[in-house]
Every structure is written in structure tokens, then in C-alpha cells.
């Protein structure tokens, strides 16, 4: 992966010139995969800064990420993916980044596909772009029971927002400053992506899905076990339902 970076740099979109941009990488016990994730992001774009949010890992995730030259924010204990990712958005907001991408620390998101995610944001066609593994059904498609769960959530979410959403649980995303401001102020707990789709819709931000291929996780363990999955489905469906009746929280304001 590093060799790739040292070869001739690929032609970057000219709109990226001087644009402060950051990759947010939530990681929980990912010491085996975090180095590769950081190196792949760097190979994709050297000017893309990287913040690894270590969600209270018990292993050397923070140490390894720091060795790789990423900014590292280490949470004092495990907040869950929602709290960890929002920490990344707050970091991006506080430090004035105009573009953020999000990749998981387990290596299932392939940084070389970030171009497809970033393009619609740069063209101002969307405020948030989500990489969908089901839009073209290629790459790792997740296990069968999990896929069934995702289908139920996708159907529900599509109905609620009145638009087809194929992969509401994907954390492979690109966001502009509007979306960063919103998520820095208000982001769902636990496993946030599904509820975030509704949140984005209610705030009238533009969301778009682009097809991506995902990989099977490179190391570590998924945060979702079988019992938890059932609980999670019930919780998310409840949250989606209640979310319809909720007042919006104002996004954080830029000071200047």
C-alpha cells in the first residue's frame, strides 16, 4: 500500500486544492488493522488529514495509530460507535475542516474508492454521500442474517424519507461542512447510521448513495453479536418512530 503512495501521485480533483479535509476513523480494539487503514488513506490522498478516534480500546490501537502519524483522540472509556464518530465530527468542526470522510477502523472500507464518495460533495450535489454495498451488489455482502436485518431497516428508512435507501447502516461516508455542523451538534447513540439518515432528511440536507465494494473486516471483532442485533433492531425501529415526532436540534454555527 505504501508503494502505491510513492508511485506517481494520481491526478487530484482541482477543487480539492487548499480544501481542508479530514478522514475520521473510529476504532475499537483494532491494533491489527489500524495501520493498514491509515496507510491506505494516506496512499489515496496525502493531504487528507486523519483522526483516529480510539473508543476506549484495551489494546494498542492508539499507540499504533500515533506511530502511523494520525491525529489520535483517545476516549477514556467505550462510548459506542455513535459517541466515537461524533467525537470525530466535533474534532472536524472545531478545527475548521470543510470536508470529512468516514471509514471504519477494521479495514472493511477501501480508501481507494473515496473518489466516488467525494465527487458529489465537491460538485455540491449532496451534503452527505454514503457508500452502499448493496446498490450494485458487489464485494462483501455481509452475512445472511445481518443482510436480512439491513433489508428491514432499509425498507423502513426508505418509506420514512420517501426515497430509496439501500444501505442505511453504511459508515463509509463523505460529508461537507453543513453535515459536519449538524452531526457535531446532534448524532444518534449506539449504532447511529440508520437514525442519521432520518436526521439528515429532517434537516433537509441532501443525501446520496453511491455504489461501493466493501471487504470483510481485516481483524478484531464486530461490535454486533446475535442477541444485541435483535435488541438493536427493536431500539432502532423505536428511535426511527419517535424521531419522526422530534424537534430538530440546531446545527453548530460557524463563528465567522
Amino acid at each position, binding site marked *: 500500500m505504501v508503494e502505491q503512495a510513492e508511485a506517481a501521485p494520481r491526478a487530484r480533483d482541482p477543487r480539492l486544492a487548499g480544501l481542508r479535509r479530514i478522514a475520521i476513523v473510529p476504532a475499537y480494539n483494532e491494533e491489527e488493522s489500524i495501520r493498514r487503514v491509515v496507510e491506505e488513506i494516506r496512499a489515496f490522498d496525502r493531504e487528507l488529514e486523519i483522526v483516529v478516534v480510539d473508543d476506549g480500546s484495551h489494546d494498542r490501537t492508539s499507540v499504533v495509530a500515533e506511530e502511523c502519524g494520525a491525529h489520535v483522540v483517545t476516549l477514556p*472509556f467505550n462510548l459506542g460507535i455513535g459517541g466515537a464518530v461524533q467525537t470525530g465530527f466535533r474534532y472536524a468542526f472545531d478545527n475548521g475542516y470543510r470536508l470529512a470522510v468516514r471509514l471504519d477502523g477494521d479495514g472493511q472500507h477501501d480508501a481507494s474508492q473515496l473518489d466516488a464518495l467525494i465527487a458529489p460533495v465537491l460538485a455540491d450535489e449532496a451534503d452527505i454521500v454514503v457508500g452502499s454495498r448493496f446498490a450494485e451488489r458487489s464485494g462483501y455482502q455481509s452475512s445472511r442474517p445481518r443482510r436480512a436485518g439491513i433489508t428491514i431497516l432499509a425498507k423502513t428508512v426508505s418509506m420514512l424519507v420517501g426515497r430509496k435507501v439501500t444501505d442505511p447502516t453504511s459508515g463509509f461516508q463523505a460529508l461537507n461542512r453543513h453535515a459536519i455542523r449538524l452531526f457535531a451538534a446532534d448524532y444518534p447513540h449506539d449504532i447511529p447510521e440508520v437514525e442519521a439518515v432520518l436526521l439528515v432528511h429532517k434537516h433537509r440536507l441532501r443525501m446520496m448513495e453511491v455504489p461501493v465494494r466493501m471487504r470483510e473486516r481485516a481483524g478484531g471483532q464486530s461490535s454486533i453479536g446475535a442477541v444485541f442485533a435483535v*435488541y438493536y433492531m427493536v431500539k432502532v425501529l423505536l428511535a426511527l418512530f*419517535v424521531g419522526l*415526532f422530534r424537534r430538530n436540534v440546531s446545527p453548530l454555527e460557524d463563528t465567522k
Partner: protein
Amino acid sequence: MTPLTVSIVAATASVALLVVVFEMIRSRRLRERYALLWLVTGVVLLFLSVWRSGLNTIAGWVGVTGYPPAVLFAVATLFILLVLLDYSTVISKLADQNTVLAQRLALLEQRLRDRA
């Protein structure tokens, strides 16, 4: 058989519980995670108070012969125990995290003072 008045009062109370919990989630005073057990409690109690013959049958199973609504109280008590137990674990976790936060904050302040 359960007196009709008891059924009506119990059903009303269950609905009230559900409405209050829903409103608390909506206004963000209660997280979904902590609301779920309350909602299950409300739904089960509502179900038992409306399904009057069912309450009778269940009373028979557990040997309550004189006064079936006693089963309602028993079930309500059981769920309240569950909620309390769940909250005890939650409080324990919060206390642990609070300790960690206080320690980290104090160490951080100490480091800042040393630099000043």
C-alpha cells in the same frame, strides 16, 4: 372474573405510562435504551388488563383463585423489579466511568499546572 372497573382503570394507567414514556423519549429526556423496558412493561400490563379472560386463565395457572387482578399487581411488581435491577447496573457503570473521568481530569489539570 376481574371487575370491569379494575380492568378499565388498569388499562388507562398502562396507556398513561406508555404516553408519558413516549413523550419523554421525544423530548430527549429519556434515551431509547432506557425506555425500552418501560415500554415493554406498559404493553404487557395493557395487554393483561384488556384481555380479561386471559388474566383469569393465568390466575388459574399460578394458583390465584380468589382475585385475578392480583396477577396484574404481581406482574407489575416483577417488571418494576426488572427496571430497578437494570438501573442498578447502569448506575454502577456510570459510577465507574465517573471515577475514570475525575482521575483523567485531575491528572490533566496537574499536567497543565506543571507546565505553567
